[in-house]
């Protein structure tokens, strides 16, 4: 935290200077939309980034914004867009405040400021509002993170998704669960599924339950527990979990409730073979790993994840660590990826015309990215056919940053050793 | 038949019986005064008649219809209007708009209601303040406004709760004239008043209550000589009675 504050303060000053410089005329002209002359001269190409940098999702939004930014910095440092005479990229910033209407309005502002492509915005609801706007304004929109299947089901021409769909996420979860249990030769009989009752949590758990039922695996879901996002107490829920006597828990949770859930499981001494997150943002976040320490060990999560061996990751992570004191994680890495994909498309398009960018986005075949998965290609809906999830397990290591390890798929694995069943929480 | 009949009206607050089996009536065209010490239950009588308080028992009959359990607005619609002891003007709107609220009760057309309101404002001597916000008026004028508003509802019976309190003698005399004129137009009047000057000048009959019970009733000049009244209200030394 301390390190971060320093960086923050540094940024403060810079931004402050910039802002005070731009004050006065700048404020008035840009806001009230005096047609921008800059658009005519493609010395810089503007990319609009809309992320939830304030409000409940600020932690993710700020990381994602930085991911977008660092990818662009990287391209610029390497000569910009060569096909357009080394034109530099510029990220113009928007804050969705986690509200759809604000996201839409911000996207519109960024388009007005000259953004030729949009990237963002983590939340599916905001993504939907921006997607429709992008379609209305005919500006390409690359979603870095946003999993809900429905967004790409509308048949929009201008919308692409780098992230995996919720359906893909669920399929990955089941596949890995099967691999883990079969390899260990242990088959949990009773399971509890918990999920936050938000679009993501409900969609994920619904899909997972359905797929689990059809899988023929010898596991029965004896309890499904839903609770609102942002809950502050899970003791009653965990008491119910304990009463259900599960062998395994499939939590679909965010960082806040993950912490509460894990502590309650410990305090109430719930007997478990393990914790397996089918798609659980939270269980691998650095704050979580640090604060939970031993309690976090051996939990497994299926997640679209970074590929630590890739050169792109190593480059991106170094920059990210320097700027924020944190490692690239799923969201920031995908944000990094999203901006890289855009740069690649611009490079091949050699033009900032929507038509050309769209054509080149559709022809994307981009492998030099920092995440687990194949080369990024978009199908006719705009979804990334190369997207893949990984199974990560938190394993003991004195170095906090080395605890989260990929265990599956084998091609990307950092650790051959999958620990399952795990020792009980209070016996570590 | 009397215009208003009060029959064994009783109202208690907690252990305190504010009005205790009170009966009296008001004839059409009459001016009746109600006097008694502070806390004797006078305002409670008004509140029970005008529907702001439900009586515990007893009946209030106006033109042969029971008013008990009716809402204040519906009692007002029947033709029984009141003023409040602590005046309740609509502070942020003009005198005209204040009076128009009353006028609109009987007159659906806003423009006709406005004309009527202006007439009443003129009659009450508030013409200069027509466009002024009510909250800016001094107390005597607010009292007049209160009366003007009630008058605008075209009542058959007006209940006046201490409209003369706080007025100087000249103003009291003016108001006496106005009330008499209102009465001459056929409006019956039932008034609570401490200003004996007003009570004596206007009332055709006076009721005196104390502890919620009637202790005297009759012509003003008879009532003030009544021993019970002197003891309870006017004071033993009647000459120096509480006549402010």
């Amino acid at each position, binding site marked *: 935290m301390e390190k971060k504050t320093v960086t923050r303060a540094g940024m403060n000053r810079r931004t402050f200077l910039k802002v005070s410089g731009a004050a006065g005329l700048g404020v008035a002209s840009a806001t009230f939309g005096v047609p921008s002359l800059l658009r005519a001269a493609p010395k810089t190409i503007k990319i609009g980034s809309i992320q939830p940098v304030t409000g409940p999702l600020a932690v993710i939004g700020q990381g994602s914004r930085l991911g977008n930014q660092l990818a662009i910095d990287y391209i610029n440092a390497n000569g910009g867009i060569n096909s357009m005479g080394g034109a530099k990229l510029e990220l113009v910033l928007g804050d969705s405040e986690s509200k759809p209407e604000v996201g839409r309005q911000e996207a519109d502002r960024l388009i007005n400021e000259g953004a030729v492509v949009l990237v963002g915005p983590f939340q599916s609801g905001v993504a939907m509002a921006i997607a429709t706007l992008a379609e209305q304004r005919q500006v390409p929109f690359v979603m870095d993170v946003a999993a809900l299947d429905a967004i790409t089901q509308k048949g929009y021409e201008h919308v692409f998704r780098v992230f995996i769909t919720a359906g893909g996420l669920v399929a990955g979860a089941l596949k890995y669960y099967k691999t883990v249990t079969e390899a260990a030769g242990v088959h949990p009989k009773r399971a509890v599924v918990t999920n936050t009752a938000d679009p993501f949590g409900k969609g994920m758990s619904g899909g997972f339950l359905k797929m689990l039922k059809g899988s023929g695996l010898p596991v029965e879901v004896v309890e499904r527990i839903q609770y609102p996002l942002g809950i502050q107490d899970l003791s009653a829920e965990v008491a119910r979990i304990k009463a259900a006597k599960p062998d395994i828990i499939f939590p679909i949770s965010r960082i806040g409730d993950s912490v509460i859930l894990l502590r309650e499981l410990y305090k109430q001494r719930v007997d478990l073979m393990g914790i397996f997150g089918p798609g659980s943002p939270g269980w691998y976040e650095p704050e979580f790993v640090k604060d939970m320490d031993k309690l976090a060990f051996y939990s497994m999560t299926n997640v679209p994840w970074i590929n630590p061996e890739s050169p792109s990751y190593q480059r991106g992570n170094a920059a990210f660590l320097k700027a924020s004191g944190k490692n690239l994680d799923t969201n920031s890495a995908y944000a990094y990826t999203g901006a890289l994909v855009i740069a690649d498309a611009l490079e091949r398009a050699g033009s900032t015309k929507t038509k050309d960018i769209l054509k080149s986005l559709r022809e994307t075949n981009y492998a030099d990215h920092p995440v687990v998965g194949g080369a990024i290609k978009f199908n006719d809906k705009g979804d990334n056919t190369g997207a893949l999830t990984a199974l990560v397990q938190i394993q003991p290591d004195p170095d906090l940053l080395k605890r989260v390890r990929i265990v599956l798929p084998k091609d990307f694995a950092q650790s051959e050793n999958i620990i399952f069943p795990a020792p009980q929480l209070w016996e570590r | 038949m009397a215009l208003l009949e009060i029959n064994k009206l009783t109202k208690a607050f907690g252990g305190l019986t504010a009005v205790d089996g009170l009966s009296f009536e008001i004839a059409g065209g009459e001016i009746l005064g109600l006097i008694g010490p502070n806390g004797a239950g006078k305002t409670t009588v008004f509140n029970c008649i005008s529907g702001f308080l439900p009586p515990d028992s007893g009946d209030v009959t106006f033109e042969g219809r029971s008013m008990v359990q009716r809402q204040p607005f519906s009692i007002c619609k029947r033709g029984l*209007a009141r003023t409040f002891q602590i005046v309740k*003007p609509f502070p942020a709107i003009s005198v005209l708009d204040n009076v128009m609220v009353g006028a609109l009760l009987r007159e659906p057309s806003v423009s006709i209601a406005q004309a009527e309101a202006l007439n009443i404002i003129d009659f009450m001597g508030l013409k200069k303040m027509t466009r002024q916000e009510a909250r800016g008026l001094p107390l005597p004028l607010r009292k007049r406004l209160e009366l003007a508003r009630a008058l605008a509802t075209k009542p058959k019976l007006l209940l006046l709760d201490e409209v003369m309190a706080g007025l100087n003698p000249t103003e009291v005399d003016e108001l006496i004239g106005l009330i008499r004129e209102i009465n001459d137009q056929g409006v019956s009047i039932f008034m609570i008043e401490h200003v004996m000057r007003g009570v004596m000048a206007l009332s055709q009959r006076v009721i005196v209550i104390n502890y919620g019970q009637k202790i005297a009733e009759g012509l003003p000049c008879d009532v003030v000589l009544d021993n019970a009244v002197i003891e309870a209200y006017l004071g033993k030394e009647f000459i120096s009675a509480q006549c402010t």
Partner: protein
Amino acid sequence: MNRLHLLLVLILAVLSGLPLVLSKYTLGIFIMIFYYAYLGQSWNVLTGYTGHISLGHALYIGIGAYTSVFLAQHYGLSPWVGMFAGGILASLVALILGFLGFRFGLRGVYFVILTIAFAEITRLVVSHIEVLGSFSGIFLDFDPSFRNFQFRGNIPYYYIALTMMVLSLAAVRLIEISKLGRFMVAIREDEDAAQALGVNTFKYNMIAIAISAFMTALGGCFYANYIFYLHPDSLFGMGLSIELILRPIVGGMGTLFGPILGSFILTPLSEVSRAYFSKGGLEGMHLILYGIITILVVLFMPKGIIVYVRQWLKPLIPERKGDD
């Protein structure tokens, strides 16, 4: 027609012409200005004129949005019709709320809590109804056509929002000069005195809340077909309820032009501060500024900015005679 009317016509003419010169983004800001002015005006009918404070007006926006979208998705009903269905439903819900509040004489803080409770309960209920998308919310299909209340560009939305704002202004003006409006103001000023003058306060309270809810719900339909995404938390949440009352309060409650003025000040202000202070390292600064400015306005201009504007405009308003 006096000079003030002339000024209004002039402003309206300028606003009508703006789409010819402004960018789509700036039109977007104006749409939000009109939208929030409209909502503020709708809230003003209840709270500004009748004096009952509602902190749960998001409820009616949500009902309007969900009803029109539900009818469009499941019965193919045009939102142009569906919005009125939403309005009627919102009025019915408001009448239930009003019945509880007015029949039992809840005033001030207690009425506020009742309105919050209604909105929160509805939010929770909608969050559990599958056909309404439950927690996930509803994604609208983008199918631009006049019938569907959906358009490719901002210009149609601009004119719709402008029309809604102007109509709400006209409606409130009509109310203001009618018997209804005068009775509403009387209730606001002193409910007992109004009763004593024969005003059926319960009836007029109910009328006021029904009108207010109806108008607000129409705004919800507009929102749905402009944003294309409905979510119970953002549509029934207290955040929106508060957002909606900011503008009339800053502009001037219980006045005709207060909500509009407030929206013309606050909406661009939040836009500008977000655009210029939400950059790296300063996340959150714009909301702090927004907070400080609203506090300052309330502390130093408690009657709303409209009071000051009125003073500037005084030369334009003809003196009224005492006895016209």
